[in-house]
């Protein structure tokens, strides 16, 4: 593991251009294309000329584009860039909301793993049977259903009919905070009642968000398992007289190598895939913030959010690489 530090530095450096590029793209989308965002920030058509000029000066909008860009990036890093809508630093806004999104993604991830892995494995073991066909179609149905259709279906079943969830407000974090992720803290501090509150509020949005990813994972696991099963080493195990259960243990271990790295990427995808879920389930997370910032042309916020998404993407990739090296003895940093 000695190479880990060097590896991280090397990978970190290749990501710098990506991060710069991402913010530049957002900058272009936000500042170059639209006609006049400032008017919207100042309060729409009825904004006074003075107010508009004030905002222009504050956000360096009357400066050349590179100055505007540097101003935004500097503001992001020092957290002095204010969200024009509520005058709170962008990253302070994001920080508060990120906890909600992270917890949502965590619930989704739980369901993804819970459904995707076992069903994918069953599908592979029973390949070409009726069970396999049904599971494969099920996975495709998961992938093919728009998340909002799924959401309304679930709301109808689990909220309106059976009332198995709460859909309003956000339960308070447990009093004793360690990780700042409420549901994890409530488990660590054995705060049972708070845990139940968190689960009641988050399980359905998490389930909804996770369905499509579970379908993807099912398919990936099945294919990975079958790929591992078709290797010569599997035939050699059979020739050795290894019983079926043990044979599957070998195959599973081999199949999980790529699956584990995909899981890291999927968690990143879940974090970034929340806008619609948060809108429907009324959760004040990053996705909702991103949507609002687009709707109100609130571009300092949009730049902040996309910067965060890019970091999530980069981190997920990095974790995937590290996991790969950890589970596969052939790979070293």
């Amino acid at each position, binding site marked *: 593991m000695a190479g880990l530090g060097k590896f991280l530095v090397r990978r970190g450096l290749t990501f710098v251009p990506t991060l710069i590029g991402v913010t530049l793209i957002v900058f272009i989308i936000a500042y170059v294309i639209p006609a006049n965002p400032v008017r919207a920030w100042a309060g729409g058509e009825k904004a006074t000329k003075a107010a508009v000029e004030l905002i222009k000066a504050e956000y360096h909008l009357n400066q050349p584009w590179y100055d505007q860009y540097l101003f935004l990036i500097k503001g992001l890093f020092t957290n002095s860039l204010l969200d024009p809508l509520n005058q709170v630093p962008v990253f302070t806004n994001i920080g508060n909301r990120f906890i909600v999104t992270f917890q949502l993604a965590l619930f989704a991830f739980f369901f993804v793993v819970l459904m995707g892995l076992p069903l994918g494995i069953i599908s592979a073991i029973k390949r070409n049977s009726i069970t396999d066909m049904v599971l494969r179609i099920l996975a495709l149905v998961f*992938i093919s259903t728009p998340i909002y259709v799924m959401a309304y279906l679930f709301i109808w079943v689990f909220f309106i009919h059976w009332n198995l969830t709460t859909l309003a407000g956000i339960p308070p974090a447990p009093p004793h905070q360690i990780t700042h992720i409420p549901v994890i803290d409530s488990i660590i501090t054995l705060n049972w009642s708070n845990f139940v509150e968190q689960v009641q509020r988050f399980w359905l949005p998490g389930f909804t968000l996770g369905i499509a990813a579970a379908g993807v994972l099912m398919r990936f696991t099945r294919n990975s398992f079958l790929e591992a099963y078709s290797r010569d080493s599997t035939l050699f195990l059979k020739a050795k007289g290894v019983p079926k259960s043990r044979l599957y243990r070998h195959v599973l271990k081999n199949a999980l190598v790529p699956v584990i790295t995909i899981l890291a990427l999927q968690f990143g995808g879940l974090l970034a895939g929340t806008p619609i879920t948060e809108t429907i389930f009324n959760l004040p997370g990053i996705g909702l913030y991103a949507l609002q910032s687009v709707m109100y042309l609130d571009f300092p916020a949009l730049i902040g959010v996309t910067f965060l998404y890019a970091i999530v993407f980069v981190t997920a990739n990095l974790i995937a690489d590290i996991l790969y090296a950890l589970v596969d003895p052939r790979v070293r940093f």
Partner: protein
Amino acid sequence: MGNNTKEAYEEREEYEMSILDKISDKIIDGVALFINLIKRDWKKRNQSKIQEWKLMAYALNRSPPALLGLVIVIAYIILGIIGPYLASWPYDFFPVMYNSTSRLAAPGSNVFLNVTMVKNWHVIHYTTTVHYSIGSDLFGRDLLSVLLAGARTALVLDVFIILIGPTFGIILGLISGYHGGAIDEIIMRITDMFLAFPGLILAIALSAVLPGRIQNFLNYHPFAQTLVLKLFALEPRDVNNLGKLLAVFVALIIVWWPGYTRIARGSTLTERENLYVEAARAIGLSSRTIMFRHILPNIIGPILVMITMDFGNVILTEAGLSFLGLGAVPPIPDWGNLINQGAQYFPQAWWLVAFPGIVIVTVVLGWNLLGDGLRDILDPRTRRSMEFKVKKKSRTEGGESNA
């Protein structure tokens, strides 16, 4: 030892040719004949390729999910073409203007209308009854008619986005992988940047900022205007709604190329190492010929699968954007927008979520089933490992001679 083997060939197992096999054979022969019209002697030179296609079709014919997918996809394409003409009511006829009870009318209800409208500078009066078989939307439009008209919107966006985005991505990937070096570095860094964006957020941002510029462009280019209206089967007076619709179109193209660049580059890199590329270069073929004539056909299998499934994903994303109120806005008929309308009145107006939802799921599932089946058939490894069932035993005398 030395058993008598004279009888060995007398009873021979055979696969049964189903009616589907015969149909697919006919179709492939037809396609071959057609290509032969364009390229002389193509059929003669590609006998083995044609045979391989037929065999692949047999594999497809034995996969019920893939066949189901194919049927759905064909139905979707046909509806996308003729859907607007099948609709009983035009998409821009708003019954709610004449009778407010037509707003969110429940499935099965009938609403009487007393219509007064201006047509060709004449005021017309007439009465009519609208039958809402599966309910109506906020404007009292017959949901079934809007769904049918919406098939065109979905299909046109779908086809053109897939035609442009992935093609661009594949070309970049081929160039990047084939040339390597600085070109590769630059292309891949840019691709990485776009991949680091969550696609939905990028699409949302672009759909939000682009409409103004696009509307502007259309207002100055009447030919483009007419073309777009014709493609989407829209009335001329909807021209001012095109900006938002096309913004989604441009946004999705921008979102849809990077994945293909990465895949195409990866397979080009491995393919480049093959001897035939070396040979092609040695006899002085141009880079372009080598890339498109020789490398592309060899890497296209997995890409075709991805394209098939992305036909579904484009529908899904486009509908997601209109669900958020971006892209197509009424009166432009759009499946996602119907759900957007229904969401505010859920669960009272459940049909506005349920029926467009079912339509979207079905179509997307169709593409995915087809893509999944194609994956098994186009990948030589899984194709070879498929087991065919023997249906009947026929008695033949000896094998066919191939001496």
